[in-house]
Structure formats: structure tokens, C-alpha cells
């Protein structure tokens, strides 16, 4: 019976060896496992704010608008009428995202970087929105976001900013400027005739106040738009809800949004402009539809 004991011995060796390796590994793992650090607390705060803003109810009121989808479909009747509208929808989603990234995204980025300029940016965005239907949609959603800020987020984030101001003088300076700019903007709304509250500049400002990283802010801005268009498509019976989720989950959409954020990253608001001229016509002519399920 020598062979079993030899087996046992080799097993014992193996156990010792494994235990040693386990300890080594544990020792190497220790330094990075020192509990939640300050940086992960701020990361959690940003994640929390991100989740707040990625609520499917936001942008508030987006469910009332189709961003031109309804009008686009009316201008592109499939033949025969029973044919699927899906290919049309996919084209529209691309064009709509492209338009949003070229016209509105530079305003999100610039307001985030220069919160004190919110009033000028709001005016310039208004001046750059040539069609009343798009203007109404943008203002309705912007004002809704401002109301959410005033009624729901303000107390929490004003206190947090004041706290941060007491305890730690550097680091939160940027978002302090933003808090002030937002408070000023919100109160100026009641006195100035020039303030409109468009969604894009306000989005940049609010995400700055909530300390959401800029890239994420821009990404959700585009993603929320895609979700609003897809949701409009479901209600316009272009696709079913599972298909809708598949569109949102697709890597195609991910790549597109990431690419659009990259392209707009260094664009100034002066260079924002319409990249799909026919979009203005579709959106503007939404008013002329015989039957509508969305606001115009």
C-alpha cells in the first residue's frame, strides 16, 4: 500500500502550495481593498445623480413630442401601406441623433464648461432654433427640468454645496459657480423677457451642479433623446416594446452616441448648426398633419 500514501503526500504538497499562493494573492490584493475611499464616495454621488437624471420620465414632457418622427412618417408613406415602417424609423433615428448632436450638444458642453454664461447661451440657442415646433418642445422640457431642480433637487444639492464649501475649499469651486448661475438663472426667469429655458443649455448646467462627469452628461443627453424617439415609435405603432429595448441596447446605438459625443467635444456653439436641413421641414410641418398623436 505504498501508492496511496504517495498520492496523499503529493496532495498534501499541493494543498500547502495552494495555500501559499492564496495567501500571496490575498497579500497582493490587500492595498486596493482598504474599504470605500473618498474618491468612491464622490463616484457614488455622481452615479446617484446619473441615475436620477436617467429616469425614463426625464426629460419631463418628452413623451408629448415625437421630435419630428410622426411628421417624418407622414412624409414617407410606405408602399404598399401595409409594409413595415421599421427601415424608415431607423433612418429617422440616425438623422435625428445627428441633428441633435450638431445643433444642441455643443450647448450642453459649453454650458457645462462655462455655467456663468447660461443666459447668453440660452438666448443664442433660442436664436438658432428656426422652427416653432422644435422650439416649443425644447422650452417645455427645459422648463420642466428647471421645475424638477427647483422643487426636488435644489434643497439637497444647495446644502451639499454649502457643506462642501465649509469643509473643503478646493474641488467643489466649479460646481459652486454652477449652483450660483442656476439660482440666478432661475430667479431671472421671472423678470427678464429674454430668457426661454431651453433644454440643452440647462441640461449642461444642471449636470454640472450635480457633478456628473461631462462625458456622461453628454452621453445621457443623446441617449435620452434616442429613448424619447424610440418610445414615440412604440406609441406610433412602428415597433413593439421588446424591439424598442433591442434598439436601445444595440451596440450600433452605443457606438453612434459615443462617436457623436467625440465629434462634438471641441465644437463651439458658434459652429453648432443644422446638418440635416430637411429635418427643419419635417419638424416644422408637423403642425400641418391631419391627425396627430403628439404635440406640435
Amino acid at each position, binding site marked *: 500500500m505504498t501508492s496511496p500514501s504517495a498520492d496523499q503526500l503529493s496532495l498534501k504538497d499541493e494543498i500547502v502550495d495552494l495555500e501559499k499562493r492564496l495567501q500571496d494573492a490575498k497579500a497582493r490584493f490587500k492595498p486596493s481593498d482598504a474599504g470605500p475611499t473618498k474618491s468612491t464616495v464622490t463616484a457614488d454621488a455622481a452615479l446617484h445623480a446619473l441615475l436620477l437624471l436617467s429616469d425614463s420620465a426625464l426629460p419631463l414632457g418628452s413623451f408629448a413630442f415625437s421630435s419630428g418622427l410622426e*411628421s417624418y412618417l*407622414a*412624409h414617407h408613406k410606405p408602399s404598399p401601406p401595409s409594409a413595415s415602417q421599421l427601415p424608415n424609423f431607423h*433612418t429617422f433615428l*440616425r*438623422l435625428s*441623433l*445627428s441633428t441633435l*448632436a*450638431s445643433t444642441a450638444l455643443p450647448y450642453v458642453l459649453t454650458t457645462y464648461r462655462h455655467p456663468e454664461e447660461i443666459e447668453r447661451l440660452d*438666448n*443664442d440657442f*433660442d*436664436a*438658432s*432654433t*428656426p*422652427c*416653432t415646433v422644435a*422650439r416649443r418642445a425644447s422650452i417645455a422640457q427645459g422648463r420642466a427640468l428647471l421645475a424638477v431642480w427647483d422643487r426636488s433637487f435644489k434643497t439637497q444639492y444647495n446644502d451639499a454645496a454649502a457643506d462642501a464649501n465649509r469643509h473643503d475649499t478646493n474641488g467643489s469651486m466649479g460646481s459652486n459657480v454652477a449652483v450660483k448661475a442656476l439660482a440666478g438663472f432661475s430667479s431671472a426667469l421671472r423678470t427678464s423677457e*429674454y430668457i426661454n429655458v431651453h433644454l440643452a443649455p440647462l441640461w449642461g448646467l444642471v449636470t454640472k451642479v450635480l457633478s456628473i462627469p461631462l462625458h456622461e452628461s453628454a452621453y445621457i443627453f443623446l441617449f435620452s433623446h434616442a429613448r424619447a424617439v424610440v418610445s414615440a415609435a412604440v406609441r406610433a405603432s412602428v415597433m413593439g416594446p421588446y424591439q424598442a429595448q433591442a434598439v436601445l441596447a444595440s451596440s450600433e446605438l452605443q457606438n*453612434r452616441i459615443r*462617436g*457623436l459625443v467625440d*465629434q462634438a467635444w471641441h465644437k463651439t456653439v458658434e*459652429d*453648432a*448648426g*443644422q*446638418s*440635416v*436641413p*430637411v429635418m*427643419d*421641414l419635417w419638424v*416644422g*410641418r408637423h403642425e*400641418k*398633419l*391631419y*391627425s396627430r398623436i403628439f404635440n406640435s
Partner: protein
Amino acid sequence: MSFVSPFGASTSKPGHGSIIIDILPPDQPVLRTLSYQYPLKLVAPDPLPPPSQGSTEPNNNTTPRLVHTIFLLTYGGGIVAGDAINLDITLATNTRLILLTQGSTKIFKTPSPDLISKQHMTVHLQRDAALVYLPDPVQPFAQTAFSQSQIYHLENEQGNLCVCDWVTSGRSARGENWDLYAYKSRNEVWTTDDATGKKRLLLRDNLILDKDGRTDMRLSARMDGYAVFGTLILRGPVFSSLSSFFIEEFEALPRIGGRNWGDVAQPQLSLREQRRAQRLAREKDDRLIWSAANVRGFVLVKFASREVEGSRNWLRDMIREEASVLEAFGERALLCLK
């Protein structure tokens, strides 16, 4: 020994031009400055009195006695890669100017997409001045890179504008269909507040056609089959009648997707309704779509059609039917739309 020229130093720079229309007291509009340098050329025929002056209505002081006309031309009939044109225009209080082109502004092929031709125009309008700028369309050929801007400065939001900016898909006869590298056109209207001196943007209409946008579609597909896109910008009391005409006609467009069930008795059509019905039939034939919007004191009209002529005829017919521009500026205003 150095030679000192007895003449003043030339201030002209290549491609630069300047137009100043002033008032010779008491009320005579004059072309005070007209200068230009190759490749830009400006031609100013004699100014004409506005047709409305001869009419029976009392000639109040606000109607200027003369309307100036200037043709913007380029040598060779187009813009060659690398050209840069800069034009400054100043219109004194209560003057009127018609700006015209002679044929479409052709943009010629560039050896490299980075070599961008530019055309920049700045117009200062003093109080009650009026500009009509209804040019031929810009026609960027295949493989071109072009950027233009038209910047209008108003005082205290005053001033009258009737300006059109339109672009075509290229030489469609040669099969070109938005085959350009890049095309940008910017229209901006700024106002300066007299009291505070502050500048404020009233309108920005910026069209950018380039490879950006992540659409994975060719430009021609992005344009949805249209060969011409245009924007007409209207502002001010001189054009208020034309502005409301566009808005009313837009309101009167038949509903998209509406049906004629044949159970509504056709009423006797008024003259305007008959003309509208004829125009709508033409719009349908030309596959022309348009919209009009009242924003920030402007009326903005956007239009697109399958062929250049469709848009040209439509714009001319709309302005001609409403007639107030012809009365105030004369037939020359529509020369480019013939």
C-alpha cells in the same frame, strides 16, 4: 533715394469689397462708396425710384426716393478653390438696396478638402434701412469645400430684411448629387442696443453639410431626394405684409394625410383661393415642401424641392402674388428668380 507715391496708399485687399449707401441731405440716397478687388466685382446700375412713388397714396417722408441695385459678380462666374471674398455693406438710415447675382454662384473643385473657399458678407443696417437680397442659389460642384457667412447688424432691432440663402445639389445634368466635401452657410442677425451698446444675437441659421454626424449615409441620402434647400429671412415693417402672406399661406396649406371625402360642397373660390389651388398643384408637381414660422420678430421660411426651378418659380410666384416688394423695390428685386 526712395520714391514716395503721390497717391494715397491703396486700401483694397484681394477679394475685398465695400458698399456704402448714404443720404445726401435732405433725402437723396447716394452710393457713396463702391470698391472691389479681384476676384470680386460689383456692378451698380443707375438707381431707380420705387414704383410706389408714382401711386396716388400720399408720399410720406419714410419712402426713400431711390432704390439702389448692385450685382455681386465674380470673375469666371464662380469661386475657385482658395478664393476668399469679403464684402462690407453699410446702409444709412432710410436707404434701400437690392443685391443681386448673375447666375448661380458656382463653387469649383478643390484639390484638397482642407482648402476651403470662403465668402463673407457683413451688412450694417441703420434705422429704417431695407435690404432685398434674393440671389441665385449657390451651386457647389462635386469635390468642393465652401464656407460662407452673411452677418446682418441692426440697431435697436430696427431694420428691414428680405434675404434668401439657398443651395443646390451641384450639376445635376452631370449626375452630381450632393457630392461635395463640405458646405457651410451661416446667416446671423445681431442687434446693438443704443443705450447699453450691448450686442445680442437675434437669429442664427447655420447649415453644415460635411462628413460628421455618424449617419453612415451619403449626403445625398441625408437630403432625402431634394436637390435644393433654402431659407428666406424676413423682418421689419417694410416686409411685414410679405411676412404675414407667407404665414397665412402656410396656415392655409391642406392637412397632410387629410382626405377629400367628396361630401363637402365646393364653395365659390375667391381669386386668392384659385391662385392658391393652382400653386398647390404646382407644389405637388415640383415635389416642393415648405414651412413658415414666426420666431423672435422674424418670419423664417424654409423650402426644398426636387429641382432648382421648382423652388425658383415658387419663391418668385409667392413674392409676385403678394406684390408689396415689387411696389417698394421694383421688378429688379426679382431678377435672379426669373
